[in-house]
């Protein structure tokens, strides 16, 4: 089963890569499009999927809320898509506390989306704590990129 799934993913990736011209390349596990080192909800790469947090914080900053507003607009135009928000932390904290903080970050995002009118039933969260950094490297630039929430398409629903 494992082998079949791996081969399918490889074939799909090749197919999508050859299809992608001006628009981004799709990641099948998140439904997001990668372009120019950033992730987007849409193929045209206009709706960024990631927002960032200050150290040990889970509050939505002004800059983050601008991005989330774009996401809300996209979700309204795509009402059949289910959303899974991932919460992440940098490594300057312990493992379990960061799992909890990641959940707080993801939850802060779906509370914002919900307050802007997106139905609760479409929204779900998962925390990865510090386990899935976006940027490896042990210095502030990398840590800043890891303190994030990623809005993804819930491919399991």
């Amino acid at each position, binding site marked *: 089963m*494992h082998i079949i799934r791996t081969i399918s993913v490889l074939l799909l990736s090749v197919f999508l890569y050859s299809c992608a011209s001006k628009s981004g390349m799709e990641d099948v596990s998140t439904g997001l499009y990668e372009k120019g080192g950033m992730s987007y909800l849409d193929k045209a790469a206009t709706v960024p999927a990631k927002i960032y947090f200050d150290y040990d914080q889970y509050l939505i900053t002004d800059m983050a809320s601008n991005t989330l507003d774009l996401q809300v607009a996209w979700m309204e135009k795509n009402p059949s898509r289910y959303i899974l928000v991932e919460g992440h932390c940098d490594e300057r904290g312990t*493992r*379990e*506390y960061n*799992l*909890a903080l990641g959940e*707080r970050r993801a939850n802060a995002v779906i509370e914002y989306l919900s307050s802007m009118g997106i139905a609760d039933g479409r929204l779900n969260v998962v925390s990865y704590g510090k386990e899935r950094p976006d940027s490896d490297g*042990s*210095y502030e630039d990398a840590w800043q990129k890891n303190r994030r929430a990623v809005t993804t398409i819930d491919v399991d629903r």
Partner: protein
Amino acid sequence: MVINIFFFIKLKHTKKIILSFLIFFSYILNVNAELKIDITSGYTEPTPIGIHDFIGTNDEEEALAKQITKLVIADLNNSGLFKIIDPKAYIQRISSPSIMPKFSDWKVINAQALIVGSATLDANGHVRIEFRLWDVFAEQQMAGWAFSTVRSNWRQISHRIADKVYERLTGEIGYFDTRIVYIAESGPYKKRIKRLAIMDQDGANHRFLTDGSNLVLTPRFSPSQQEVTYLSYIGRIPRVYLLDIETGKQEIVGDFPGMTFAPRFSPFGDEVIMSLATEGNSDIYTYNLKTNIRKQLTTYRGIDTSPSFSPNAKRIVFNSDRGGSPQLYVMTNKGKKIKRISFGKGHYSTPVWSPRGDYIAFTKFFNKTFYIGIMTPDGKGERLIAKGFLVEGPTWTPNGRMIAYTKKDYPKQKKDGKTRVFLIDVTGYHEREIITPLEASDPAWSPLLD
């Protein structure tokens, strides 16, 4: 005159070991001051001892006896408390462990204690291993035991001998007949592969318990130690599971409406205590494995996690940000009388109550540096015993005298440092790496095997 007293010990999971206590009656009455090693107060100069090759009466027995000797030496050496005198310096050649050694030969090379033993094989693949521990300067026997078991169990016997020597000489429980469960890590940090792994405390008998297809974190041993509780992302949903070490069978703990994590067993093994996170809030719950009843212990709207029971199960220490930053709190096992115990500068987390009840170990983050520290359960006597770019997640050896933890090296030229498991004495001395086949994190030390 030799008296054999037999104790029959039935072990749940391993082969039976028949244990007998060998006494030299006439020497028990000797009241000379006894050799004792103090391991509680700061740095102890290693005590020189002699370990004579265990004796066999034929080639096969000799080969087995040599393996046992080597393992006992390795265990006692690694504890940092003993210096095994080079056998080349030994004067007396001992031909049988049952006769009194020539103490003058051992005093002359300054051996404070002497271990002698033998291995005897029978036709059925069973081995009888005898050993005696002698106090050289007091000229008396301190301990004598005989083990009977299947030959393939020889490693466990060697560890038990090391434990008996350690216990007799320090007055503390040993830690050699134990295992470590941990997370084996490999691959780039952005796509880390993590697997549950288990091994004897000396690295032998290493095996992987999961295959790396699901992210797994923070394993902890059951007090009966044939089970491990841990966090797994099976189905991309992080939840607490139980794993049977013998069968490999995994099962979800409880049916909770959200992410469960940070699991530990209660001291009597009947409950799992953990955190449940929903809607931006995490609280501590216990789950009874027999009745399936769950109890919520905290209600503060924030982060409450990393719970750890006191050894008598009456109290729980945990990590909470209810005071505005991550700190340590103690409460009753009913969730009452919550009291903060950490007051130094910095963030405190990952508290673990010592099996002796006397200390709580923790991770501290202050001034861009991580520390492993200990404090008493009422928050006094804080002492930092290890530090690093990233150190976290202390686990106690069953004698409450050493702590293992995760350590990530400083980055070199913007590349991530390696992640490994280290061990240190509670005094802060003798930090050493626990060697693993891949990188390693989240160690948990088993109780003594039976």
